């Protein structure tokens, strides 16, 4: 009985953070920002925060936040920029900025056409395939 109770208490205790779910992304990104990550990977927590905010508010994001992401991405010198451009394109199109989303997609394709085509197969892009002129998978 003692063992069962201990396990139950432990389970309840550890599930506290798990309960927060998507808010964890925001929390984790804030920890990163507090650590003042230097370039090139400073953009990662910013994208994480923007992703969380986009999900929380039906895609709406302040233009200033998106512009900062653009600035960070234009100076990004790290690995696999294609993935980050795709994420930015997704944030832009959810925010209703299709022209900017197209620009981000162009940047993504320029960075790595193979990975660009690969990840565009995902169902995430289905609502905007026609608008953005994306190929059918």
């Amino acid at each position: 009985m003692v063992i069962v109770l201990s396990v139950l208490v432990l389970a309840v205790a550890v599930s506290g953070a798990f309960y927060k779910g998507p808010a964890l992304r925001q929390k984790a990104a804030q920890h990163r920002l507090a650590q003042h990550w230097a370039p090139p990977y400073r953009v990662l927590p910013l994208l994480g925060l923007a992703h969380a905010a986009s999900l929380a508010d039906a895609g709406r994001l302040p233009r200033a936040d998106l512009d900062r992401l653009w600035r960070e991405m234009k100076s990004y010198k790290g690995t696999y920029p294609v993935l980050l451009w795709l994420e930015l394109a997704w944030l832009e199109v959810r925010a209703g900025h299709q022209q900017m989303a197209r620009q981000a997609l162009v940047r993504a394709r320029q960075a790595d056409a193979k990975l660009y085509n690969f990840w565009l197969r995902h169902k995430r892009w289905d609502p905007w395939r026609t608008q953005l002129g994306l190929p059918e998978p």
Partner: protein
Amino acid sequence: MSQGDSKTVGYWQPATLLAGFSWAVFAASRWALVMTTKPDGQVAVLWVWPPWWQTVAIGLGAWLLQFLVALWQRGWLAQQALDRPQAYRRAYRAWWPCLALLLVPLMELCWPLYGFSTAPLALGREAWPLAALAVAAAVLLQTRLAAPELLRRGRSDHRLWLAPLVFLLALGVFAGVGVRLNEVSGQTGYLMAGDEPSYLLGTHSLAVDRDLDLLDNILLRENSYFSDPARLVLGHGTWTPDRSWVSNHRPGLPALLSPFYAWGLYSDLGPRKLATILVWLLGAWMVLEVFWLARFYTGREGPALLSAAAAALALPGLLYSNLLFPEMAAAAFSVAAFRRLRMAQPGQYGMLLLAGVLAAYLAWFHERFILLSVLLAFYALVRGHWRSFGGVMAFFLPCIVSAWLLSTYFSHLYGTPLPDPHIHAQGAYLNPRGAWEGLSGLWVDAGEGLLPYSPIWMAAVAGLIWLLRRRPGDGFWVLLMALATYLTAGLYADWFGGINPPARYLVAAVPFLALGMAAGARWAPRRFMLVTVMLAVLTVAAAAFVMHYPSAVYGHSVVLGQGLQFPLVENLLPAYIFAHQQPALNAQLGLIWLCVAGVVVLALQVDGQRFSPISALICLLGAFLVVAGAATAADRIGPGLTAYRNPAHRIALWERARVFPGEGPSWRVGPAGPQPQEALLELSLPPARYSRFPAKPVSEGAEAVTVPPLAAPKLFLWGQYLNLPPGRYQVTARLSGPYRGPQLVAWLDVSLDKGRQVLTRSQVSGQQLGKPLVLEFDLPRGARHLEVRVGTTGRDRLVLHSLSIVPRLKSARARTP
């Protein structure tokens, strides 16, 4: 004769005198430096001795020690319930096993002398502490057997506090390993490899997004929370029919890890660190279950503690307690379910329900654990839990529901209701290279096998047979559970488990194997503990080595031979995955060592043991000869001990030569050949092995490389990464080329820190080509990752014939005989 006389005069008995002499010869002969070479295909051995007075002093010191121990032993036996003359007689006779020690120097000298093999020599040089330990343990055992009334079995009382203590100690050990791994790798270090990052990405997805689709996590590069941000982790994924990207791994482990991982994200303490705590808890739980089950089977706490210690301290459990693979969880779940099925009485539905849930969950870790679930279901039937409707429902309902859910999961994600080999098994479950590879490799492969890292499991197998003999019902099922894990893993195409520390797929068998330790300690003859102590020493030494250098166990490398002068592990054992040997050769080497393991297991099955020092001596001699014979056979079949492919072996010799007291006599055994001083200490750095484009071998299989004329200077050889002891060294290169003018054609340097620190450098003109180019340098504090680099100016074609490095010993210790 008075008592006082017998105390002093009594030592001068043949057994004790010869024992002292054996220890003296054995100890004195350990300090010689031995070098081998193979001129004209015939092995030559050079023995270099320390000054004679040192040799004699060491021998006399060992003899004196034996004399003192013999006096103490005689006195101790006289105090036991034996009459004094009988006690003294038995005390002297107990020393007979020491004569086996004479066999070691005898084999070291005679075997190569008659051209047999250097294998016994290598064993004698490297493994002599084990021989000494075996002989000392045999004397101790015979001394104990001399007073039979001392051999009382332990009491059967059960102390309540012992189980929590076992759990806490295991938790402490696993946490200690975690601290060490974190120390060497950091939160995001190079230690993580293989499937671990993929499991963590899946965990992240579950914790943050509450789904299995990894796209968000990949695009946001969220593997940066547990690994290098520059790295891309795709989660070993695949497209589902609805075009989601999900991991090929089952979600069982990520689901367990995610609450702990979530705390790591939330608190910024590091999600991997926090997730590891769960694996510590699972590991400690597994050890506790082993302790409980072993105590139940044997009725004793001592053997149960031995089982728990083996489960906790021996590899692979020790290392997998800190790796985020499903292995430890499967081990804990399977043994916990097994124990509950064994202990449950009619009407204990809660216990059966828990067993059912645990058995059902196993399949969610990986489909190879489905066999364990099926066996547990059969065990539930055999234990009679089918007799009540409640019992059947309690155990089987979770299993049926889980099977249905798993089938739905597979259908939804992969379009097939059953696990498909293409999902995550390289297209086939059964090994296309043959069953023997995995079945033997899992035990004795030099890099991936269980026994080279943890030979104690050999004793555990012998113990399991004792469990089968004394408690056939329980023994059968425990053996079946261990065997099911072994066969599933051994027949699997990926039997080595991918890029991860060795014997990964046997972790789930660890709790069941560990039960054999308790059974052996409880029912096997006393020699079981003798063998266990020896194997435990080896096991702890291997575990300590792995803890010292944990990252080395990744990447299919053979690491345990690194500190040895002779390449025992690399050249005598099969190495299926680190593919430098022919598959057929590996199979034969595997057979040889499995036969030796079989002999050990059989020897521990012979029942009963009484005071008989001569029998002990014969057994020891037999054991030494079996091991030496097996090593000789492996030496003959395989590449041979004189094949030095790994620079670490030559450097181990340099280290010994550096600290060697020196200036004694030297012997040469075998044919005349190269002068020993340089020839036997020289480390060849074959250009073909370390060269890079545009250099290429002059012909197939050749060591020399050629570099064409180039438009710009280019480095074409580097990357030896030698770890050298302090001393002075000489590098010699032989370059040639058509151009013989005064202009520079090449350069040669010695560097550290990936070329950032150059120790010495030499420019090579065309006039110097064809002559040996020599560079000398000092390393006052030794060096790590030293490279000898060669570059071309591009002036003309170059051929690099050879490259070598040799230590310049202060005194000519390895003197020419």
